[in-house]
């Protein structure tokens, strides 16, 4: 062995010593299933029907997430120690520290979810969870295989890009669920087959990973749009652009009250079409000749970004600036 080969061997073994964190198969499956399940089911279990009071709903979410994530953290920790012991391996210092960082990210996500009930921003909750998951994967990857590091970065970008692109709430939810449930096991599977010394192969694996994670989400979004489209016998109501539509605002406030029956006259800017069941809208709509949506997708969002009090002719007025937006389209 030449001196150069010996030095390269030293560097390789030093790197192997540093990158000694193992992403255990049970960890990837547990976190994948629980994270994916929570993204998919939380809104079905805890919603305005089951908990009408927002504070109760916030506390219910806090308890629900803390119980699942805390329980899974304990189980994962226990199983990881057991797996290491069965292989006669010690727990590396780096793995213990990275696991603590992962717990902190989970706690941060749980508290942010809770806080959004009081301070707003709920529209980006699933993007936030996707980014937090990406951070967790990235930190594990720093002390594990380089492919895991790259997948962590890809996950962070996925969450941030989805938010910037204005993905519908429901699409962002399924993207987060897919990143957990499909992405984590797929990352482990690919990492076990990757060659650390071939960056091109690593890049191809990341592209494959992104495809596997994203494809089902967009396939299901396309299916949802098809399912929302009315059949030939469905009654629809076409509302042309320019029509004045009254907006009734149900305002909870210790300061201001709205008189019963007061409405703000709003003028529709684009043609809209609603499907009717028994003479009432059933939650499906479209703008112009665009694709059909369901109100459950969370495509519509109201954002109030400015509140100003003015005095006009000696009388106080409250002026608000808000955006009633269609996700994915610029206002």
């Amino acid at each position: 062995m030449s001196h150069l080969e010996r030095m390269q061997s030293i560097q390789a073994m030093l790197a192997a010593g540093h990158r000694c964190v193992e992403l255990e198969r049970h960890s990837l499956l547990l976190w994948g299933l629980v994270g994916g399940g929570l993204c998919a089911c939380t809104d079905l279990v805890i919603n305005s029907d089951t908990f009408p009071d927002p504070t109760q709903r916030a506390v219910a979410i806090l308890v629900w997430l803390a119980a699942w994530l805390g329980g899974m953290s304990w189980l994962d920790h226990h199983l990881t120690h057991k797996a290491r012991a069965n292989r006669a391996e010690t727990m590396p210092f780096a793995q213990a520290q990275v696991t603590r960082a992962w717990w902190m990210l989970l706690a941060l996500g749980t508290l942010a979810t809770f806080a959004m009930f009081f301070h707003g921003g709920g529209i980006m909750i699933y993007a936030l969870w996707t980014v937090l998951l990406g951070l967790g994967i990235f930190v594990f990857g720093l002390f594990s295989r380089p492919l895991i590091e790259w997948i962590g970065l890809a996950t962070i970008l996925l969450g941030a890009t989805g938010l910037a692109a204005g993905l519908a709430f429901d699409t962002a939810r399924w993207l987060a669920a897919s990143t957990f449930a499909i992405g984590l096991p797929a990352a482990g599977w690919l990492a076990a087959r990757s060659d650390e010394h071939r960056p091109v192969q690593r890049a191809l694996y990341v592209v494959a990973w992104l495809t596997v994670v994203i494809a089902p989400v967009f396939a299901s979004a396309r299916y949802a749009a098809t399912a929302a489209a009315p059949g030939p016998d469905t009654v629809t109501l076409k509302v042309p652009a320019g029509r004045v539509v009254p907006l009734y605002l149900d305002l909870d406030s210790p300061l201001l009250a709205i008189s019963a029956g007061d409405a703000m006259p709003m003028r529709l800017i684009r043609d809209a079409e609603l499907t009717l069941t028994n003479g009432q809208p059933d939650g499906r709509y479209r703008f112009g000749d665009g694709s059909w949506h369901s109100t459950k997708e969370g495509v519509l969002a109201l954002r109030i970004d400015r509140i100003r009090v003015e005095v006009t002719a000696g009388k106080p007025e409250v002026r608000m600036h808000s955006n009633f937006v269609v996700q994915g389209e610029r206002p």
Partner: protein
Amino acid sequence: MSMLPALDPLLHQPVRTQIAAYLAGRGEASFAELKRALAATDGNLDAHLSKLVEAGYLESRKEALTGGRPQTVFSLSAKGRQAFLDYVAALSKLLPGKPLAEAPLHAAIAPQ
């Protein structure tokens, strides 16, 4: 005439160099982990570990892992860490052309 640096004969053996490098990066490792990382046989690894322990380069202790049998866990001693750093420095000077950067290697070695 330039004086060539002397290489530590104990560390100037591929398996022992690798053991020292792996432990420098990881901090500590059990016999099973070293065996897997180095792809060495039990007998070969045991012989090299014994030499490093006898020279005071490695420290060993028995640790009862959760649910498993007690394992011997190895780590570099202060003497072994210094010997490894000196070995890397000496080896760098023997490389033709521009020596490999020593600083990153030193920085990469886990502090005790």
